[in-house]
């Protein structure tokens, strides 16, 4: 076998050429999204005037939504935006380029200086903002056509603020509520109208007890399990006259007497109705309003969830096999009124983008005028106060009928008026983990409410102060 000699020069030439091609490929691919769904560059709408290259501005937008339906919905909003602003071209990437953890991707892109111009967030902007990674938009909001500071629900806009400055816009602010099985209530001879739903913790606990049925060691049907969805805990805390975090004073209030009393009450509930066995109750499956949850599977007639749950296709009366309704959270012994919380989605502009004005226009459109397009299909309670009154989520109408849909729409929007402060801590995730860990320990009876919440308070407040000092 003869071996063809490769001259050193030829080899080095080849290597050099290869490296150059690789480098060019790398440069070309930098910042380009992997093909997630159809994240092709937006083209000007049909009939729009052609744009001279000099006038054209190219923006990159990421959305945390990665599902095809969600990306398609955003695509439609972008097309509308494109018609209004033919000079702004938007390249959309759903779920972040190449998949993976969205926050991780965004964080590293911001750190590397090649972040998108606009990004949606599933976690509050304050955490990113406090660390100086998002653009301050107050002066842009002051002259904005739609996104003026007074045009948003203040508690929701507060989730975008840190020390008086605004770092993003809320896209939605879906509030939470109690869900109940109307048919089951009827069978049990209970009133099914919303006004008759339990108004206090004690009333709800008594109602829950009616549905708890044990057969030997086995729970056949359950009542309400208040600790099952810890993301709703700010609402429960508010209903008992407390809160977890006070942004005005930059202070955690985890061991507030109202919170201690709340957990004490839950432990009593666990003992009274569920034999004190939190793990057995957890092993019976999820107690939320999801399709795989015990409420939907008719193990319990009582649950809690977000407004968005109402517009899922499985919630259609016919599909579910029962009629259902929503009500407010009950008021605790230390509380004064029913409070809800909310889970927004946000948009923000990573710092250092070259097209601030255009990026803001896009973000503003997404969170205001463009929002109804999203809302038409997903019941994500809007955060924008000028949201048109006549837009009702079609999926909700399909699920429960036009009259009931309007009623629910108003219920969740009005309930936002009574929302507690939430999502405002610069160490939101850390604080939430401490709170949830404390609740977990209390429900497992590893610690008393006082001990667990004192410890969580000390840890969270220490970390908060450390973080604020380091900013």
């Amino acid at each position, binding site marked *: 076998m003869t071996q063809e000699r*490769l001259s*050193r020069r030829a*080899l*080095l030439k080849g*290597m050099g050429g290869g490296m150059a091609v690789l480098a060019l490929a790398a440069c070309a691919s930098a910042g380009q999204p992997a093909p997630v769904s159809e994240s092709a560059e937006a083209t000007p709408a049909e009939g729009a005037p052609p744009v001279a290259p000099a006038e054209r501005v190219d923006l990159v937008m990421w959305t945390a939504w990665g599902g095809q339906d969600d990306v398609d919905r955003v695509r439609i909003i972008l097309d509308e935006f494109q018609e209004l602003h033919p000079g702004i071209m938007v390249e959309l990437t759903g779920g972040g380029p190449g998949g993976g*953890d969205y*926050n*991780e991707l965004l*964080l*590293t892109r*911001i*750190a590397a200086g090649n972040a998108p111009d606009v990004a949606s967030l599933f976690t509050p902007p304050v*955490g*990113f903002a406090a*660390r*100086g*990674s998002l653009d301050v938009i107050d002066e842009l909001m002051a002259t904005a056509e739609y996104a003026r500071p007074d045009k948003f629900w203040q508690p929701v806009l507060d989730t975008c603020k840190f020390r008086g400055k605004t770092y993003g816009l809320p896209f939605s602010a879906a509030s939470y509520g109690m869900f109940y099985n109307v048919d089951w209530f009827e069978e049990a001879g209970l009133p099914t109208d919303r006004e008759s739903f339990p108004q206090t913790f004690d009333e709800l606990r008594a109602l829950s007890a009616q549905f708890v049925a044990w057969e030997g*060691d*086995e729970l056949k049907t359950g009542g309400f399990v208040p*600790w*099952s*969805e*810890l*993301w709703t805990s700010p609402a429960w805390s508010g209903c008992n006259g407390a809160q977890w975090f006070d942004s005005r004073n930059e202070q955690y209030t985890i061991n507030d007497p109202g919170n201690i009393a709340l957990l004490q009450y839950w432990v009593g509930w666990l003992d009274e109705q569920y034999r004190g066995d*939190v*793990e*057995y*109750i*957890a*092993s*019976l*499956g*999820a*107690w939320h309003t999801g399709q795989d949850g015990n409420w939907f599977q008719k193990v319990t007639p009582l649950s809690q969830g977000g407004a968005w749950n109402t517009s899922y296709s499985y919630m259609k009366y016919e599909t579910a096999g029962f009629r259902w309704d929503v009500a407010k959270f009950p008021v605790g012994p230390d509380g004064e009124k029913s409070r809800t919380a909310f889970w927004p989605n946000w948009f923000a502009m990573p710092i250092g983008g070259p097209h601030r004005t255009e990026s803001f226009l896009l973000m503003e459109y997404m969170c205001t005028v463009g929002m109804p397009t999203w809302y038409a299909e997903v019941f994500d309670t809007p955060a924008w106060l000028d949201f048109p009154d006549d837009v009702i989520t079609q999926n909700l109408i399909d699920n429960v009928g036009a009259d009931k849909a309007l009623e629910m729409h108003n219920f969740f929007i009005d309930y936002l008026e009574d929302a507690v402060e939430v999502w405002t801590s610069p*160490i939101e*995730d*850390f604080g*939430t*983990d*401490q709170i*949830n*860990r404390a609740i*977990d*320990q209390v*429900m*497992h009876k*590893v610690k008393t409410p006082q001990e667990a919440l004192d*410890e969580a308070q000390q*840890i969270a407040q*220490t970390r908060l102060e450390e973080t604020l000092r*380091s900013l």
Partner: protein
Amino acid sequence: MIEAEAQARAGVPTDRARLGQRRARLLRQNVKGYAFISPWIIGLLVFSAYPVLASFYFSFTKYTVLKPPVWIGVANYANMVTQDPVYWKSVSNTLYYGLISVPLGLAFSLFLALVLNQAVVGIGVYRTVYYLPAIMPPVAATLLWMLLLDPGNGLVNSGLRSLGIGRPPGWFSEAAWAKPALIIMSLWGSGGTMLIFLAGLKDIPKTYYEAAEIDGASAWYRLLNITLPLLTPVIFFNLIMGIIGSFGVFTSAYIAGGSSSGGGYGPGGTAGGPLDSMLMYMLLLYRNAFRYFEMGYASAMAVTMFVAILSLTLVLLKTSGRWVYYEAAVPS
């Protein structure tokens, strides 16, 4: 010196010149080799060596990724061992997992290898079937096992109920059963280790077994006195790899811990399960890095883990002479 000058005048190359020529010749001979391995060398330096060194540096800083690192000395290490409420929990979880899953995994893999080392019809098919789970994506494997171990309707608990066990374990929803569930899951992916054992078994000369059989040694005796001693290098290798793997357990805990109801922390993915029973070291590291923006602290955790694994490996290497039998090393 004088001799060298004389040589130079005479046109005879000096020793130094000869050395230079030899080096140049060697370089000419090797340049292609270096050129061909350069992508790997560059990749190693840029994507492995630099990040390792950088994370060592970051471990002494307050670093949020979003702002330049600030030197804080050993504060991250001090906080880790004295302040962090869940650090030692994550260490104990990981040790528990490692101490049980590694020996159990080795025993299970060896058992499978012994079974699949038999000369029966269709053994290739069996080997393939047993190896397949090892190449299944960890996320998919975890989701599959979560279905199997579902406390209510899972296949495992249905089977246990049919055996008369009235209230089978809650698996991921029970603090006491969460880690055993992860360990059971890990056994399912023993195909890789099994394959290495199988290769080791194939390497043992048949003559030993024949001689032992002639001497009347039972199967059990042959296993203890021939198979296991001659497999010790393979056991040693798998032990080291198993320990490294057990320290790095992440995906299964991340998925199962994040979705466990009741004891979980709800949405967020890095919950750690009831009473932090599935809060593994890597999960806490990830949580600090990407959920709390504490990259400096996470780097300190990574460095600590590196030191722990390195120390453990060195101890094992040091003690391996007592129990690992290398045929070639035995003096005749």
